[in-house]
């Protein structure tokens, strides 16, 4: 099989994967440095459910909040001391961003869903 076909197939598969991920709102893994304050992670329009998880205990405690830039509105924050999945179920109009504040040590990845 010509190399360009393989490349095309790879890009196609990546597109399918991206499409599948985007079907579930906005989700991402966000590296957040400690002591940097709230960092933007992922955003989506008109979300109804929001979730966060620290990928390592070194990134605890951490804070999670939702922010709507168009109005400056904030939901939260909550502070968590574990690596469980935490969920808000709030229906919000407009573009909303999930933000994480790493109050632990180092740079840690956090999984965030805003949908």
């Amino acid at each position, binding site marked *: 099989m010509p190399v360009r076909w393989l*490349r*095309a197939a*790879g*890009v196609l598969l*990546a*597109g399918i994967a*991206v499409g599948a991920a985007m079907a*579930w709102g906005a*989700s*991402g893994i*966000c590296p957040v440095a400690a002591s940097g304050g709230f*960092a*933007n*992670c992922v955003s989506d329009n008109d979300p*109804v*459910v929001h*979730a*966060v*998880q620290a990928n390592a205990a070194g990134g605890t405690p951490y804070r999670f909040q939702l*922010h*709507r*830039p*168009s*109005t*400056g*509105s*904030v*939901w*939260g*924050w*909550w*502070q*968590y001391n*574990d*690596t*469980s*999945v*935490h*969920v*808000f*179920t*709030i*229906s*919000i*109009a407009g573009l909303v*961003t999930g933000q994480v504040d790493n109050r632990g040590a180092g740079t840690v990845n956090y*999984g*965030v*869903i805003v*949908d």
Partner: protein
Amino acid sequence: MILAGIAIGALLVLRPWADDGPPPEPPAAAPDLRGAPLDLRAAPWALQEGGSPALDTAPPTQSLVFPPGVGYAPALRLIVQSARQDGRVPAAATPAGPLPPEVVIVRPASPREGLRVSLLAPFGWTPDTRLIRPASLRLPAAVSLRGATARLRGLAVPGSPLPRGVAVDVPRLEPCQIAVGTPDDRPACP
């Protein structure tokens, strides 16, 4: 197409760090909920369409007294279950008047008394910004975010009960948010 793939990847990786949005909206005028029939779905912690309300401008809201022996975590679960469904006062609880806004719970002074929980901010409020927290749920420890899609979709369904295995997060309250015996028996907030 490769360039398109790179562009998509970049969009997924890049995060806007700077955020200089406009100042927060002024709080909307809210009704006084002191004498209104209790509908937990309309309480300031539950109905947060415009953001978490400011503690100091939110309407006075009643509290609930739970039977002796019911702790803070079970009380929060009952409150969340009600707000997710019909909004009625949990059968085990008795409505009482509003607490001072800063007071989240009044712990019983004796085993014969019950826990009293604010319906203004049962999940507490943020000490720095003094915003009323919404409820937060916790999935079982074995569940990863990647594997949580179906559960999250279920949790987002309006009117659905709280599934077994999904916990209600219990906040770590500041000392001034906790009174003992009477609403005034607590340290002052900073």
